[in-house]
């Protein structure tokens, strides 16, 4: 076994109302790739942020090469030898590769940057990764994969001992992933301790030497990859034994009572987003969409809702072909969508709860038919009660509400348009357990009222609990559709593990 480089003991981080990390031990060794696994909310990001100084820890110890570290900012973490490359490349697109690698660390002479030296240094940093690139190229001209590699070159240009890769592959294709892995293996062989976070099981098994699993902010365990079968890993991540999962089958899930088809797609596709897709959505049924990050689940939602245009295939609504050129057209046809990203896609932060709630309905009624104030107030009162929205009043600014309550307002806004088909993209993400249960109950109620619902959710347990059918996506294509008795966590796990092995 190689020498431990980064050692953490009892790391704890609390946020108001949640313990995001609860006494977690973690150890990354030199010359090893260590995968950090867990479902959403397990504490992976918090652990990384605690290590990189974004969220200073509340308790616990960390050391690099035996020296205690307590970073209060990413800069301090870098100085201590911990470098990080994030999911979204956070470099400056309009600068050259050399500038991006050397930015903030330039050698100067009389206050002027020594560009010749910067270029040499950038070339050297890339050479360490076995790369030869034109360092004068503007970063934005490079592919995302190359940008990712430049980010790694920047991260390892200083004397890094630990390199954290936070979902580096989510926007790369297979060839680019292979290129990235070559670079990562090279760095590993140079003795770096590499922490690899990814939702892609096959990538973890291809690259990692060791896996640490987190769940609900706690450490589940550390396992050598060879001793941890995929199914066992997924079971660990979900907190169930494989047998237990078997026993869970069908519990909580009412018998499927398939209604008549409402909307169907036939070979619907969009370049780089969705491969030809057949889906059938029926009244009174929840169709779960499960796929790993970047598998195309949000892209499917965007296609259905007219946010993106398909380049092939067709959509039929009650048997008649339809094309939605905009969300407005989709909404007129009776579709509703609550977007995945609450902050950037869903809320109007500086407008009131009332305005956020009625804006979708108003958009559907059109510019000239203003909803009378009395009706607005009634809608707000009704939905506030029905969905248990906690607010000091309809005129409170929505940004002052908690995340869960904001999600409820957005959901209420969608429901106010009385849709026949509702697409919910991660409706329970980032909200507490109680609110989650409320939203699940509401989902069942709407389904029983005859709505067709598309439920996108990364939590397999939650998805199995609430869906009558589950479509599993991978690499932008549907690889499995589970119906009837197949709708359970284990089958979903199998579908994901099977496809991962392919």
């Amino acid at each position, binding site marked *: 076994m190689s020498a431990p480089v980064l050692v953490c003991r009892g790391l704890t981080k609390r946020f108001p109302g949640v313990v995001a990390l609860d006494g977690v031990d973690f150890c990354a060794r030199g010359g090893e790739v260590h995968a950090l696994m867990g479902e959403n909310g397990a504490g992976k990001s918090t652990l990384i942020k605690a290590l990189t100084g974004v969220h200073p820890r509340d308790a616990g110890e960390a050391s690099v090469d035996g020296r205690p570290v307590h970073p209060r900012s990413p800069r301090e973490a870098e100085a201590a030898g911990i470098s990080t490359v994030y999911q979204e490349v956070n470099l400056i697109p309009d600068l050259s590769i050399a500038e991006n690698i050397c930015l903030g660390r330039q050698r100067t002479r009389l206050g002027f940057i020594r560009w010749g030296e910067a270029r040499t240094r950038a070339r050297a940093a890339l050479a360490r990764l076995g790369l030869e690139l034109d360092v004068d190229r503007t970063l934005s001209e490079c592919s995302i994969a190359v940008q990712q590699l430049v980010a790694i070159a920047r991260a390892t240009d200083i004397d890094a001992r630990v390199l954290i890769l936070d979902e580096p592959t989510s926007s790369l294709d297979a060839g680019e992933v292979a290129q990235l892995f070559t670079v990562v293996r090279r760095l590993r062989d140079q003795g770096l301790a590499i922490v690899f976070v990814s939702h892609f099981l096959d990538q973890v098994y291809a690259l990692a030497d060791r896996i640490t699993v987190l769940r609900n902010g706690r450490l589940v365990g550390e396992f050598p990859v060879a001793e941890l079968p995929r199914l066992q890993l997924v079971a660990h991540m979900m907190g169930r034994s494989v047998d237990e999962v078997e026993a869970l089958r069908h519990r909580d899930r009412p018998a499927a009572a398939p209604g008549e088809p409402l909307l169907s797609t036939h070979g619907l596709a969009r370049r780089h987003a969705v491969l030809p897709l057949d889906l059938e959505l029926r009244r009174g049924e929840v169709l779960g969409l499960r796929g790993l990050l970047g598998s195309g689940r949000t892209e499917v939602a965007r296609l259905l809702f007219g946010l993106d245009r398909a380049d092939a295939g067709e959509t039929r609504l009650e048997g008649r072909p339809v094309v939605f050129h905009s969300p407005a057209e989709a909404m007129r046809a009776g579709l509703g969508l609550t977007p995945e990203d609450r902050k950037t896609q869903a809320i109007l932060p500086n407008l009131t709860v009332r305005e956020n709630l009625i804006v979708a309905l108003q958009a559907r009624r059109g510019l000239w038919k203003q909803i009378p104030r009395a009706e607005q107030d009634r809608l707000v009162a009704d939905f506030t009660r029905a969905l248990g929205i906690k607010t000091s009043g309809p005129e409170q*600014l929505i940004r002052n509400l908690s995340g869960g309550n904001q999600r409820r307002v957005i959901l209420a806004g969608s429901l106010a348009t009385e849709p026949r088909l509702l697409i919910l993209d991660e409706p329970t993400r980032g909200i507490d357990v109680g609110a989650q249960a409320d939203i699940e109950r509401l989902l069942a109620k709407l389904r029983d009222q005859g709505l067709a619902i598309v439920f996108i959710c990364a939590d397999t347990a939650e998805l199995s609990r609430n869906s009558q059918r589950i479509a599993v996506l991978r690499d932008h294509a549907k690889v499995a559709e589970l119906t009837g008795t197949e709708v359970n966590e284990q089958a979903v796990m199998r579908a994901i593990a099977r496809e991962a092995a392919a």
Partner: protein
Amino acid sequence: MIVDLLIWPALAALLWVNRRRPLLWPLLALALLLLFNRLFTPGFFILEIRDGRLYGTLVDVLNQGSKVMLLALGMTLVIATGGVDPSVGATMAIAGAVMARLAGVSIPVALGGGLGVALLAGAWNGLLVSAFRIQPIIATLILMVAGRGVAQLVTDGQIINFEQPALVYLGNGSLLGLPFTLALVLGMFVLTALLVRRTALGLFIEAIGDNETAARFTGLPARPVKFLVYVFAGFCAGLAGLVAASNIKSADANHIGLYLELDAILAVVVGGTALTGGRFQLAGSLIGALLIQTLGTTLYARNVGADVATVPKAMVILAVCLLQSPVLRAKLAGLRRPTPVAIRKEGSA
């Protein structure tokens, strides 16, 4: 004096009604400026009636300020969507030029031509911003730069004079003893307020300005709305251009509306609408325009040369902007009492 009996109670009442509203600061600034003039500028508050018409500095403020007030109405909606339109000054010049050119044909043709060309100018801006998605400041700078040239082409580089009584009345006539321009401004204000608050336009504009992506997700027609606000700004600029040409009974392509777009943008910002878009204050913009005009008239009345008058003007505007800065207000509030700011009531139009 009777003027005092009217003005001060009215201002006090306005301030009291708006004590919790975003209009407080521009109103307070206006009140303080008027108070300063009442105390130190002789003759500022003297009003007299001649030939059934009211004369005096205060009337001049309203009359002269009408152009910026008209511009500010349109500019408010543009800024609320997160855009800006510095081309309105040039649009004024084009509208004035077209009216003067067509003055001899007939009055309706002259007025319709001037307003029509202004609507076209607005539609041009709207097209660039909404259909071609060019950044608003760049899209409108094109017309700002080219507009005066267009106006020169319309007038063949000449200053065209006109004498038609109806056209002269527009900028110089009086209605019920007050300048006709005041009626025009009030009419446009009521019309705009109805348009934004009695239809969903106001909500849509604020939604787009607050978070355009989210607004699109709700299915509201973001691009048509953006197009519409630029057309509306063009229309307002057209009206202001007709007034400006009428004021001097001629079309002077080089000077009509020069730099007024900056005053209009300032009026909107001083009035409490953020340049980042979202919530807008239509009445605030009018108060902002009045504040800027009062300031200009004050400096003129106190014989501050036009060439240096920009300095005190800038200082007053800076003061109002600082008073509205959330950072500064949080600091001031912190000095007074350590409790957090109460949840703000919804603002009014």
